């Protein structure tokens, strides 16, 4: 199964004809992703990398049956593009753009209510179901198919963890980076629920960071509702309080925001907590072995 995207997903790129969108659409196609076209207002009717360009998301959906969109438009226009995708009936919107104003995302989240759509990002490396669908900027070759679900804030820390798992022969069902912004499209909890129901996912790795309480919320739900091992890591144990650590949302605003406090809470919620990022792969492996012993 996998979650969010699979080999049947029909993908469009918004901001299709831009340099980055073009490169990453080509990469996605190379991995077998069904990229069915793209949207660049004013360039409708043209062809770009052998795919049709549309003026609106509505046109693209009607003519291609697209259900997933990857947004590469600049920050000033991102909220509008995301709402257009929601209105157009896209089911999964992956917002790669970094630097989207927070209040724009507050409005987008309000607009989202009542729509059956999931937004991943902004400021995300995206989503990948290995060898089936890549909607993001991650290096595809390190993602080997398998049965571990990964959800992280950071992109590069996601790569780090995935590589460690690959070396131990552990593959990925689906991997998602939700992005580092304080108001983001999709939280850890929403994805935890999907992984819990996915029969191709045996364990979930959650890679969080300082700031906010999303990791604890997801772990609390998982303890009560999910019978798969949950492995957790929180980045930022050495981050000074009150400073924004690269990601707009990565800031210690109170005692509960620290990596230490979050890891402690996660451990109390039966999460296999990784203290050292270099040990993520091994901890996932051990938690699976322990699961087998119990079963």
């Amino acid at each position, binding site marked *: 199964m996998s979650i969010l995207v699979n080999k049947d997903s029909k993908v469009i790129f918004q901001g299709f004809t831009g340099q980055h969108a073009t490169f990453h659409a080509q990469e996605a196609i190379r991995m077998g992703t069904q990229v069915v076209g793209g949207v660049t207002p004013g360039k409708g009717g043209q062809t770009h990398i052998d795919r049709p360009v549309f003026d609106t998301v509505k046109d693209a959906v009607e003519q291609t049956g697209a259900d997933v969109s990857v947004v590469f438009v600049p920050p000033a226009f991102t909220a509008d593009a995301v709402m257009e995708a929601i209105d157009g009936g896209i089911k999964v919107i992956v917002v790669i753009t970094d630097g989207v104003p927070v209040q724009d995302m507050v409005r987008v989240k309000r607009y989202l209510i009542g729509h059956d759509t999931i937004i991943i990002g902004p400021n995300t490396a995206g989503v990948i179901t290995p060898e089936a669908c890549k909607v993001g*900027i991650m*290096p595809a070759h390190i993602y080997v198919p398998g049965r571990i679900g990964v959800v992280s804030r950071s992109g*590069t820390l996601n790569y780090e963890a995935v590589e460690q798992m690959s070396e131990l022969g552990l593959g990925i069902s689906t991997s998602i980076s939700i992005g580092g912004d304080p*108001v983001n499209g999709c939280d850890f909890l929403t994805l935890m629920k999907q992984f819990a129901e996915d029969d191709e996912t045996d364990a979930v790795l959650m890679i969080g960071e300082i700031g906010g309480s999303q990791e604890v919320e997801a772990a609390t739900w998982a303890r009560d509702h999910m019978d798969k091992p949950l492995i957790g890591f929180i980045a930022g*144990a050495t981050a000074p309080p*009150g400073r924004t650590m690269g990601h707009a949302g990565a800031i210690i605003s109170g005692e509960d925001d620290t990596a230490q406090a979050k890891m402690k809470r996660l451990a109390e919620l039966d999460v296999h907590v990784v203290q050292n990022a270099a040990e993520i792969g091994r901890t996932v492996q051990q938690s699976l072995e322990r699961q087998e012993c119990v079963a």
Partner: protein
Amino acid sequence: MNIHEYQTKDLFRHYKIPVPEGRMAHSANKALTAAEQLGGEGWVVKAQIHAGGRGKAGGVLLAKQLDEVREHAEKLIGSHLVTKQTGEQGRMVNRVLVEQMQDIKAEYYLGLVINRANQRITLIASAAGGMDIEEVAAKSPDKVINEVVDPAVGLQDFQCRKVAAGIGLSGKQINMAARIMKRLYRCFRDKDALMAEINPLVTTGDGQFLALDAKMSFDGNALFRQPEIADQRDFDEEDPKEVEASGHDLNYIALDGSVGCIVNGAGLAMATMDAISLYGGRPANFLDVGGGASPEKIANAFRIVLEDPNVKVLMLNIYAGINRCDWIAEGIVKAVSDLEVNVPIVVRLAGTNLEEGRKILADSGLQYIHADRLSDAAEKSVKALAGGAA
């Protein structure tokens, strides 16, 4: 991005939020002139720095005589004010705000934030004004009122009246306070703020409300459409190296350890710092080179990290996705040839164009410590620190 109290109060005036009469001054003489122009029977001289906690730290001084205004300003301007938010080294005071002293009857708290839990703008109010609102919320949560704003319709009048009544106001004061809340919300929304705080909002002897203190911070991602806010940025309040780094599109934060770090991605950068610490070292900085880092950008990152005299080892940890290891390697070679590098360099590269990157490093004849993994890189950095480089 933060601005000063006097700037926030100017913004408040524009939105018709009542504030005390005041003037900003760069010198003791100007402070005196300001007090003379303001008139009245007493004045407050307030140090203008971005950090909070000024009152308790001696940064807000009362003057009954004009002479005292000058003395206070003289004492504050040019001094380093240490508050609980500045750290030990304190913050240099370059200017003061001189205001008329007010006849205060009651103090309240009023604030707006973007609440991460509900992802909406939330109005916060309390009858416990003049205190640290986080402490109030922790000790007696019943004293703090939260009212969530629906972004589709904005903050409504009834919500403001409900909050005003909730902090114990009555009669005419309910509408007066509600108007202030509404105006603060408009200002917050119009200017892409992340936080606005009036602490305290006071009532005076003649029954008026005044924003006695004022604090706002703004969304750095929205400055492209807020030029008048961006113009008010005070670079003196920021670490000059962080400013320089941001000019090169690098995200740098100075810390007090000895292992200099150059990493791509904020999450991996934090995790790398944490790993260094677990192996017994201490990171000298956070540095995220971001995506698509050119050789020049890497060379700039080297220079900025190595300017810190505490750096005894330099560690690069790059997991290239959108980046390219060959560009990173070119940047390393360029940096080492341009700069005088006297500390061991530990390099861990992974991801896109790894082989090309390794070849560039090998062909350059550069002396460096190779690491395959994050654990390796952290461990070898700490070993190199102890003089065991090999």
